[in-house]
């Protein structure tokens, strides 16, 4: 447990239903405002979180409610970490190991941007599977 008083740590969790994602967004924005993140950084963190959580609900849990989606927010003045955890189906490896190619705009895609956006917005991405589930660890520099 980190004892640096400049570091903040909070865990958020919701049930795996898309309509619950907005309260998670609200919580993240409130945390960011309390810690005086800029609107820019906060918007980017919100988009990262929502895309990751939507993926968990839609793919890892196949839109089945009654499962927990966890988001851990770790803040230091240098960077913010978001750890999105689930105990559903794991993500295919190439989705997090390779920078994902965005769908071609000319094809008029209606989806498939989620992980690509996370790759573009994050400073680093790590995906870990352990006994407690799948953890997408994303970091974003603040300075």
């Amino acid at each position: 447990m980190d004892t640096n008083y400049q570091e903040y740590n909070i865990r958020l969790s919701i049930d795996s239903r898309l309509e619950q994602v907005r309260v998670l967004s609200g919580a993240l924005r409130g945390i960011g405002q309390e810690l005086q993140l800029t609107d820019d950084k906060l918007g980017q963190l919100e988009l990262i979180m929502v895309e990751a959580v939507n993926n968990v609900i839609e793919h890892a849990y196949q839109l089945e409610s009654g499962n927990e989606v966890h988001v851990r927010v770790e803040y230091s003045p240098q960077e913010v970490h978001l750890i999105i955890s689930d105990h559903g189906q794991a993500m295919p490896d190439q989705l997090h190991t390779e920078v994902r190619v965005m769908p071609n705009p000319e094809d008029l895609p209606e989806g498939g941007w989620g992980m690509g956006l996370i790759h573009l917005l994050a400073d680093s991405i790590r995906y870990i599977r352990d006994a407690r589930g799948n953890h997408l660890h994303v970091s974003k520099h603040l300075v």
Partner: protein
Amino acid sequence: MQVSTQTQGRFTIATILDTRMDATIAPQLKHSIAQLINEGHNCIILDISAVTFMDSSSLGALVSLLKMLGNRGDLIITGARGIVADLFKLTRMDRVFRMAVDVDTALGASLATA
């Protein structure tokens, strides 16, 4: 989701009144604009200047509407800002949609090219 509509010449201006366009809103968004299209409103200006957050599901819904219109009409997106504007840029979908800073600019540009 709340949308207010208004007619201006050949354009139907649909203004999104919510501040959030996410995966819950996307199907509703698709439905209400599709309804406008089915009623014969083929030139739509979608004003999203009130929207402070948008995810890729909503972007997908907008693309489906663009396809629905095909070359029968127009869908112009106005007022994207902050992370909403970023979403269009990061996905490069700002090249596919006609976009304008605000409704007046969209109307002006359309007159000029009419």
